Every structure is written in structure tokens, then in C-alpha cells.
């Protein structure tokens, strides 16, 4: 699918994408499907027997043994290059593993800390010696790792860290002092990727041996959810770290920290899509068995609406997640795999798509929040009790919107990165915005409506959403100039419009690709969900855009823009009850998420 000349992050807003150019879950290879099955089987066989102990008794130390078992299955190898004992898998595979790992509950966090954030800094930023020394043992879980960025005084503002590093007089060691907190796997990890400021100002990454003198591991945090995942503070008092353990470059720790967060975001997007599917799996059968007023719950319109809404959000989120996987893999495929700095270059490709990574993080975690919320509601009193897993999903889900960058921080990143790319000329955003502004404030043109083709109406709405983005973000940039970065509400509303656009387009392209491959009938389920979703999204986009406009301009100018916006956002309402009914019927029949 690498037809476009080097697609770049955020570019979807400025051009049309062909359905055959997007990666979709329908494109998974046999190997990928087998990997997915293996992860599912691993969860049933290895996690299920210890579920009670892990999730409800909070035995966090089980994670250590479970990591060894996961390593035997090769589940810690995907992110590690082949040369260092890994599999060097593509991002689509890595995301599929994350999705399937969701069912392992707390262990998904444990697994992510070891195989993701605890390992990737070395993959992407380590020296040859560091890679050889650590990666093979991390793949086999002979060495357990973790990742320490957050501190008591610095969370979202990670660069404000207070942990310090000072080079010893002999130049052989750095002496580290400070406290890191909320560190996953700290209860048993043997090493940590940790950030400290050299001489109090140069933010830098280090590989620290947790067995070193001066390291203290705090007590397990009493968390709301993911109770089986170890989370402790790490305190460093005059800890001597050999200079060879400096990771990356002095003063360039932010490069490591922000890039690792990006990877964490796309994986979390995938894993929360897995979570959404689990909600359906554990609620829909109940709605069929439970009878009230002489009928099963699933016969009631309001229950069917919930099932349909959760399913449509799951479908759209899944489409965005794997479309992004395809974008990342295509971009990485343009690199020379034999180059010595291939891994470093590939993380830069990921960085180029930080807009997409932030969007799928926010969208999918919020889809999961909706799913957990409605899942509990569908189960009624049982949803509130631990007998069913919904109670746990409801608690566990909450942190998804806090870690890997809060959803607020991620919302700032989305328009922020677009403006950054616009300013450097990497995205011809401002030119496109100007053209749309003229269209919006000019006289309306009228076209003859004909009989719409498959998904044509939705395609038009999506094209209009893009124009809305260009119009409102372009106007905000023009009016606020440098001060735009301080207009958080405007930025967040723009982020939501952009995200809805990406969501709708990803689902739309996937539906078109499916129907082109297997005929229109094969994509009917997708089409129902997309129709429902796009119309709902357009209503949201209309309101968000009005708010941005009202916060940006006033008087006649505002009225002119609002009139233009009304033209763009105009759409006939769809019969939502009918769509809900059709979407829910398929899920109720299959008793799980399905696209058939």
C-alpha cells in the first residue's frame, strides 16, 4: 500500500485516501491471526486460573511468574529486533497482541511494562552494547524491567522532574537522587529505565540496576483498578550508576520519554479496543438470558441501543487503530532495514504520526469508558457485583484515560502538532484553510442531488468534516496567533473535531474496502454502524465547531462563519432506532462483537 509519496502524520485531513491504501483488520495475515489465537489461548490457560488471586486478592507478585510464562510463549519478543533475540514484528502485529492481551486484565499492564516501556527505550535509543547486553534477557524474562518517568511533583509536565544525576570526579559514575512514583512492575523488576537531570538541568535517560545500593522500593499502591499489577514508588539515594548505563544522549531524555509515550498510546488504543469487545462478550449473553416483563432484556429498545452504540464505537475505534498501524508500518517500510540505525529511524517515523497515536489513545480509551459504563448498566445489579467482570472493567478502565499522557494532554497534542507541521510547511494546512474559509464565507453553491451510491452520503459528510477542521482551526490560528497554545478549550474542541473526522473516515474507508473486496452485502454490518456513527459525529462536530467559532470571532463575522458551517454540517437525520435495532440484532445473535 506504499503508493503515496511518504505519507505523513495529519495528512489525512488534507487529502483523499483510497480505500485500498488503508490497513484493516480484514487484512491480517495467517501468522497474525495465529498469534492472536495464541494470546487468547495463553490468557485462558495461564491467566484465568489465577484471576481471583490476581484481580480480587491483589497478589501483585504473581506478575513475575506470569511474565516468565508469557516469555515461553514468545509474548515478550514482538518488539525486540531479531538480532537481539526478538521477532522484530510489525506494528500491526504488536497492536493485535496488545488487543488480545486485554483479556488478561492486570497482567496486560504488567506485560506492557516489561515488553513495551521497559524494553523499547533500549531498542530505540540504546547503544549496540546495551542492546546486546539487555534485550535477549528481556525477551526471555530472565531480566525484569520497568520504566520510571513520573515523580510526585511531575506527571504531565514530565520534564519538570526533580531527580538529579551528578557525574563523579573520576568520571566513571553518575550519582542519582530522587523519587519516581506509580512505577508498574517495580515490586519485582530488577532494572529500570529512569530519567534524571544531569547537573539539575539536562534531562537524561539511564538504565539503573534496582539491586544497587541506595535504591528503595516503596509499598504497593492501593489502586482503584488493575489490582493485580504491581505499582510502587522507587527512591534513589546516592545511587551510583556506571556511565555506560546512560541511555541516548545527555540532555536528550525527552526524546526517549515522548517517543516511548507515543508507542504506549497506539498500544493502549489497541488494548482498549480489545476491552470494548470483552464488554460485549460478557454482557450480551446476559441480556439474552435475563427476562423481565416476560421477555429477554435484549428485546428492549433501550438495551439494543446500548449494544449498538458500544458496537459502533468499537468498530470505529478498531478501524482507526489498525489504519494507524498500517500508516506506521508503511512509513517504517520505506526505511533500509539493514541500516545500523534502523530502529532509531523507525521510532522517528512513529513520532511523525504522533497526531494519529494521540487520537487513537483518546478515542479508544473513551470508547472503552462508554462500553464499561453501558456494560455495567446492562447488567444492572449484577454489573455492580464482582461475580461478573464488568465491575472490574469499570474500575480498570478509568486509568486508561489518565496514563500514557492524560486525554487532556493528548487533546492538546492533536491540534498542536498539526499547527507545528503547518508552520514548518510540512503540512500545507494554512493554504487549504484559506481556501475553505473563502468557500465558507462566500455564496453557497447548489448541486443537483442524485441517487446516492453506497456510503456516498457518509463520504460527503466526512469531506465536510475535514473542511470544518480547516475552517475552525485555521481561523483560530489566524485570530489567536502565538496565543493559540493557551486557548485550551478551543484546542480541545478542535482536537475532538479532528478525532471524529479520523474516526469516521477510518470506518468509512474500511467499509468501502470490504465491500470492494467481497461485495456490498458483505459490508452491510459495517455500513449500518458507519451510517449511525457518522451522522452522530456530524452533529457533535457542528456543536463543537460553533463553540470554537464563538470563542474566536464575534458579530457579523461570527454569523457569516456560522452560516457557512451550517451548510457544511447539514445532513438529514437517519432513523437511529432502526439502525440500533439492526446493529444489535447481529451482536445478539453472535453473542459477541462481529462484523457479519
Amino acid at each position, binding site marked *: 500500500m506504499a503508493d503515496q509519496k511518504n505519507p505523513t502524520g495529519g495528512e489525512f485531513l488534507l487529502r483523499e485516501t483510497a480505500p485500498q491504501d488503508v490497513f484493516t483488520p480484514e487484512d491480517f495475515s*495467517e*501468522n497474525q491471526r*495465529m*498469534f492472536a*489465537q*495464541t494470546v487468547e*489461548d495463553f490468557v485462558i490457560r495461564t491467566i484465568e486460573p489465577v484471576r481471583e488471586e490476581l484481580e480480587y486478592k491483589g497478589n501483585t507478585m504473581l506478575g513475575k511468574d506470569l511474565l516468565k510464562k508469557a516469555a515461553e510463549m*514468545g509474548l515478550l*519478543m514482538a518488539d525486540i529486533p531479531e538480532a537481539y533475540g526478538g*521477532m522484530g514484528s510489525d506494528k500491526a502485529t504488536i497492536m493485535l497482541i496488545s488487543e488480545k492481551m486485554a483479556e488478561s486484565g492486570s497482567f496486560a499492564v504488567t506485560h506492557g511494562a516489561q515488553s513495551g516501556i521497559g524494553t523499547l527505550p533500549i531498542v530505540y535509543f540504546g547503544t549496540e552494547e546495551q542492546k546486546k547486553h539487555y534485550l535477549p534477557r528481556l525477551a526471555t524474562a530472565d531480566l525484569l524491567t520497568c520504566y520510571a518517568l513520573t515523580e510526585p511533583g511531575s506527571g504531565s509536565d514530565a520534564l519538570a522532574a526533580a531527580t538529579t544525576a551528578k557525574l563523579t570526579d573520576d568520571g566513571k559514575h553518575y550519582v542519582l537522587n530522587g523519587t519516581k512514583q506509580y512505577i508498574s512492575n517495580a515490586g519485582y523488576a530488577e532494572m529500570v529505565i529512569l530519567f534524571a537531570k544531569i547537573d539539575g538541568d539536562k534531562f537524561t535517560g539511564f538504565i539503573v540496576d534496582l539491586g544497587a545500593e541506595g535504591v528503595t522500593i516503596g509499598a504497593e499502591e492501593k489502586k482503584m483498578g488493575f489490582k493485580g499489577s504491581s505499582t510502587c514508588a522507587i527512591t534513589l539515594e546516592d545511587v551510583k550508576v556506571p556511565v555506560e548505563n546512560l541511555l541516548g544522549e545527555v540532555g536528550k531524555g525527552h526524546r526517549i520519554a515522548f517517543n516511548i509515550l507515543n508507542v504506549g498510546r497506539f498500544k493502549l488504543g489497541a488494548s482498549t479496543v480489545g476491552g470494548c469487545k470483552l464488554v460485549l462478550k460478557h454482557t450480551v449473553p446476559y441480556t439474552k438470558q435475563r427476562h423481565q416483563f416476560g421477555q429477554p432484556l435484549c428485546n428492549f429498545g433501550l438495551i439494543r441501543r446500548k449494544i449498538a452504540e458500544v458496537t459502533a464505537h468499537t468498530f470505529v475505534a478498531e478501524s482507526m487503530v489498525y489504519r494507524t498501524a498500517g500508516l506506521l508500518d508503511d512509513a517504517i517500510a520505506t526505511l533500509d532495514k539493514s541500516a545500523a540505525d534502523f530502529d532509531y529511524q523507525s521510532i522517528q517515523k512513529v513520532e511523525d504520526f504522533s497526531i494519529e497515536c494521540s487520537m487513537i489513545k483518546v478515542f479508544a480509551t473513551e470508547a472503552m469508558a462508554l462500553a464499561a459504563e453501558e456494560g455495567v448498566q446492562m447488567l444492572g445489579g449484577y454489573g455492580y457485583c464482582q461475580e461478573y467482570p464488568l465491575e472490574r472493567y469499570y474500575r480498570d478502565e478509568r486509568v486508561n484515560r489518565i496514563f500514557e499522557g492524560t486525554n487532556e494532554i493528548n487533546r492538546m497534542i492533536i491540534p498542536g502538532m498539526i499547527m507545528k507541521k503547518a508552520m514548518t510547511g510540512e503540512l500545507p494546512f494554512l493554504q487549504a484553510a484559506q481556501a475553505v474559509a473563502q468557500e465558507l464565507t462566500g455564496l453557497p453553491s447548489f448541486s443537483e442531488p442524485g441517487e446516492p451510491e453506497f456510503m456516498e452520503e457518509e463520504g460527503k459528510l466526512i469531506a465536510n468534516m475535514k473542511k470544518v477542521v480547516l475552517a475552525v482551526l485555521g481561523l483560530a490560528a489566524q485570530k489567536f496567533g502565538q496565543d493559540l497554545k493557551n486557548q485550551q478549550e478551543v484546542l480541545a474542541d478542535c482536537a475532538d473535531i479532528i478525532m471524529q473526522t479520523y474516526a469516521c473516515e477510518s470506518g468509512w474507508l474500511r467499509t468501502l474496502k470490504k465491500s470492494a473486496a467481497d461485495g456490498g452485502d458483505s459490508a452491510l454490518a459495517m455500513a449500518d454502524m458507519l451510517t449511525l456513527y457518522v451522522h452522530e459525529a456530524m452533529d457533535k462536530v457542528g456543536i463543537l465547531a460553533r463553540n470554537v467559532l464563538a470563542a474566536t470571532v464575534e458579530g457579523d463575522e461570527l454569523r457569516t462563519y456560522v452560516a457557512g458551517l451550517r451548510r457544511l454540517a447539514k445532513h438529514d437525520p437517519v432513523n437511529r432506532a432502526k439502525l440500533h435495532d439492526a446493529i444489535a440484532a447481529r451482536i445478539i445473535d453472535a453473542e459477541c462483537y462481529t462484523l457479519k
Partner: protein
Amino acid sequence: MKIAVCIKQVPDSETRIKMSGPTTELDQTGFTRVLNPYDAYAVEEAVKIKEAGGDVEIVAVTIGPETVKETLKKDCLAVGCDRALLIDDPALQGADEAAIATVLAAVLQKDSFDLILCGIKSIDDDSGQVGIMVAEKLGLPHVSTITHLELGDGTLTAHREIEGGKEIVTASLPALLTCQKGLNEPRLPSLPNIMKANMKPIETMTCADLGLEVPAAKTKIKMYHPPAARGACKLVENDDPAAAARELARLLNEEAKVI
């Protein structure tokens, strides 16, 4: 040592079979297909023998359509079998146990296997005949329902389950064994082994390739009947327990006709 493992791809045990009435053929669209769970014990036992040392080759043998290759790859080659033979012959559709056993015997005869392992039965047809028939056709000793196996020099000792106890059986090699739950704990394929399985050969052949005339089935499935639909639950409501019991007895007698 050469070990053959005869396997079958079957619908997942959680498959929901949709039937609106009696039918001669099941609608199999949407079935998830997996390795017959009893065959997984056979595969695992062969792999354990290989791991115990010595020069051991394991060949997975099966009959079925092209789609069986997924099962051969993931559940046989990726867990330790060395290669696979697939007899893919449309003429075998509707073959019964005797016909399947004839074909398997013909394939197995082409090579000299020291040990042939099968599951005790497949969870779809549930007949438990194929392994034993193959042994008979090949003139080999067989031990069924084994839960433990030890190999000696040209001999084997197997434990088999019998009512209320176990039987310890010895036999000479070559032999055919059918494997029962409890024999071992089948492993899952690891991700790197799934990748490695891509390199292992699956040889596909037809009955003609074997120089075999397609054996005619001796039996034929005449009809599948769905279980009777469960009627709605009827609640006998009466504040007087004695009257409620009388009404219940009447309903059981006159309507349900069970007493």
C-alpha cells in the same frame, strides 16, 4: 524413530450449530475449526518423545480440505512436528470411518513408522473407530485410551483407563496407540515457533497420488435432527400449595405426558 500422528480438524466445541429442521447436511459456514482436542494429546506425546532425545521425526497426517493446513501449521508443525501430509481429495467428502481408515492406512504404509499416535475419538463424529481400524488394516498391535506411555527398546508400556482402575499393557513396536485426556498437557505454539512452522513442509496429495481407488463409504448419514426446542416455562401460581401441586401433577400428566 519415526512417529506418525493422525489428526483431524473439527469444529470448535463452542460452535453453535444452527438447524431449522431435520437435514442431511449441516450448514458449516461460520464454524471455527480447531485441532480435535484428543489429537492434541497425540501430538504432545510425540513431541515429548522427540524432546527426550534420539533421532526422532514426527509426521502429522490428516485428511481434509485445504483449510486444514491452518491446523496443521499452528497445532502440529508449530508445536514440534517436523512435516505434514494432507490428503485433500474432494471425492472423500462424506467418507465414513472405514473409508478414512483405508486412506490413512494407505498413506502410513508408504513409510515405515515405528509408532502411530491418534486421539481416542474426534469430538464431532464421536465414533472412536478410525485409529483402531487403521491398526487392523496395517496389522499392528494397538492400545487404546492410553493415559501414560513409556518406550523401551522395540517395546512400549502403556497405561489405559478401565472401569475403576487402570490396565498396564505392553506391546512391541511398531504399534498404534489412541490417546486419552490425562496422558499429558498439550503445549500452545509460541509466536516464534509459529513463524518457524512457515518453513516446514506440508505435502498435499489425492487418493490417486497414493495409487488408491477412493474407498466407498460403508455407512451414510441419513439425517441430522435438531433437539426439540425448549418450550416456555410455565409457572403454576396458586397460594394454596396443595392446589398448586394438584395442578402441577395434572399438567405433567395431561400436557407434558411425563407422569
